[in-house]
């Protein structure tokens, strides 16, 4: 099955349910880059009424809203194909809600804990902090060779890794959760992240990493196409935008710190102040 004769099969899991944030683009990027590397590739779009099947090389699963996310976990559990495919050594790219449902449990607006598929060692909970929205910048695990990973995060859930390692360290944005600066999950078979964009469109090195992990695949040098220069331009712009977000949030945090210090000072002054006239001024 190896070599140039092989057709890489990319399974796009439930684009009807988990297709809200453009993540279906990850499947297209894998297929197109496979062709640019001299390989054959096909995309199998698997709707929520279809059997997932366990014979694809890569499974791609994306983000979605609460209701569809719950429907997806129900359908995928009943189907069982994803679990079999992972046991069989397939590659998996999971984004946002797609990553959450693969964990042990996740949260929705209506329910603090919905049972996940239990295929990844992570758990996602509710938080009272604001929704994490904005450019996300991650320094990928060195083993990936992907360098800086850029994406756009938009999630309320807070994900804790129970074991294993993240995709990388967060340089700007929130990533998995507010308490630690890491994003996603990485193993020899799995690339998972909160990065929309889509992830593989913004970070072609990760697409090539996933393709290169498929047994028997050898990537030929990339065919030169003029539009490819736009990827680099886009990456520089988005990396700069993420760094700007980081600086803005640092300033806001400092201002927030100064404001709370001022409030403490003011209340101390009030409690020790002489009269009510002084109080009303403050």
């Amino acid at each position, binding site marked *: 099955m190896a070599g140039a004769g092989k057709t890489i099969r990319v399974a796009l899991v439930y684009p009807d349910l988990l297709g809200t944030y453009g993540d279906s683009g990850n499947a297209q990027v894998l297929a*197109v880059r496979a062709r640019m590397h001299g390989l054959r590739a096909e995309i199998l779009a698997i709707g929520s009424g279809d059997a997932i099947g366990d014979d694809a090389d890569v499974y791609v699963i994306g983000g979605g809203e609460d209701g*569809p996310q719950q429907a997806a976990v129900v359908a995928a559990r009943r189907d069982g194909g994803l679990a079999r495919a992972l046991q069989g050594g397939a590659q998996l790219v999971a984004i946002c809600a797609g990553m959450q449902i693969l964990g042990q449990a996740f949260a929705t607006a209506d329910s603090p804990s919905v049972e996940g598929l239990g295929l990844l060692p992570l758990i996602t909970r509710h938080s009272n902090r604001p929704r994490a929205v904005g450019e996300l910048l991650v320094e990928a695990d060195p083993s990936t060779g992907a360098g800086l990973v850029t994406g756009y995060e*938009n999630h309320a859930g807070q994900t804790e890794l129970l074991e294993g390692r993240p995709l990388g360290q967060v340089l700007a944005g929130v990533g998995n959760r507010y308490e630690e600066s890491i994003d996603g999950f990485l193993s020899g078979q799995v690339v998972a992240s909160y990065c929309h*964009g889509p992830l593989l469109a913004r970070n072609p090195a990760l697409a090539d990493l996933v393709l290169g992990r498929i047994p028997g695949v050898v990537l030929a040098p990339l065919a030169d196409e003029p539009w490819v220069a*736009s990827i680099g331009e886009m990456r520089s712009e988005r990396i700069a935008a993420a760094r700007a977000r980081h600086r803005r949030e640092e300033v806001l945090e400092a201002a927030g710190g100064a404001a709370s210090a001022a409030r403490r000072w003011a209340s101390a002054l009030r409690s020790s102040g002489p009269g009510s006239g002084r109080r009303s001024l403050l």
Partner: protein
Amino acid sequence: MPIASLDTFRARGSARFRAGLVLARGAGWLSRAAGTGTGTALAGRVLQAVSPDCLSEAATGLECVLVSATNGKTTTTAMVAAALGTGYQVISNSLGNNMTAGIAEALSHRGGATHAAIEVDEAHLPSVMESTRPVAVVLMNLSRDQLDRVSEVRKVADRWREAIAAHPECMVVANVADPMVAYAVENAARLVAVELPPGWRLDATVCPRCDTPLAFTETAFACPNCGFASPGAPWHLDAGVLTGPGGLAVTLSAALPGAFNLANAAMAVVLAAVLGLDPQSAADAISAIAEVKGRFARTRVGDREVTLLMAKNPAGWQATVAMLATDGRPVVLAINAEIADGKDTSWLYDVDFTPLASRQVIACGRRRHDLSTRLGYDGVGHLCMDDEMEAIAACLGAEVVFVGNYTAFQGMRKRIARG
């Protein structure tokens, strides 16, 4: 340029409302004089600040028709205004802003109008219904738009549902082929159901009631779990012919391009019919509309004739690309990602651009590299240029189509106006 017409001082309403109007007109005049725009947005904000109840006061005595949807609300409002205009004096918020303050400001210029055609932002429909007590609402579609700052589609549908339940006297003209709209109007006391040809469905793949995946046929949907399904409708649009109760059939024609504009026209004609106007006259009035706030306008840029189109979200882009599929003109596409557009461009991958593959395409806008990457992965050969005017000049042929998302489109209109 008068600061305020005599009207301002003769306006009905409370002293606070009239004071608000005087100040708002002054502010609007100052804003225009300073060259910062039409002044309506500022005037609206001043009016609302002085008179928080301004919208109910401005709407008093008017028969209001509200139009809301994710896509097509501006055009359909213009069509409703034209349709109502066959029988009544009509005022519309055609200049501006589709939230409370802007609507109040627009209605305060009512003159002798008896009816109002009002475009309403989807999220503001409940509060605007509360203030204006409309005789009818016209609801077309709900799909994703600016996910980084607007809540989920389902939540908007839930809020519509509550608002409709709270106003049983209001006639609800709704496209029930859209599952989200069908859900929102499910309990409407006075429903006028219309079935338009199916559009974007990717935001309504699960049952809005119970989250089970919906089963779709060509024209209908049904939930296998709870029984939520296409309710059926007395009004249908099929191949440009609107059919209604009693064997009524009206052939729609629109000067505006695209299948979606026939659908918008159908909604306006149904509205006119249920308000007692002659549907054929309404359809004729609508067919004369050639542009709406610069959308669909044909204009000269240098020695090119440029058709200007706006598309703001995946559903709008997909409909626009489908419309352009049979058209050989070069296209200039411009994408920005300002706050008004949504900062996340991931949605570009929800649009299939491949119908544009065999023609000249130029990617522009502040996020042209995102667009260029997306077009590249779709196999659409293109150039990437930073200046829209130069891009139009670089097109081969005398006619060009320009498609921009919200701020890219507005920016282009301004540049063309400057000459």
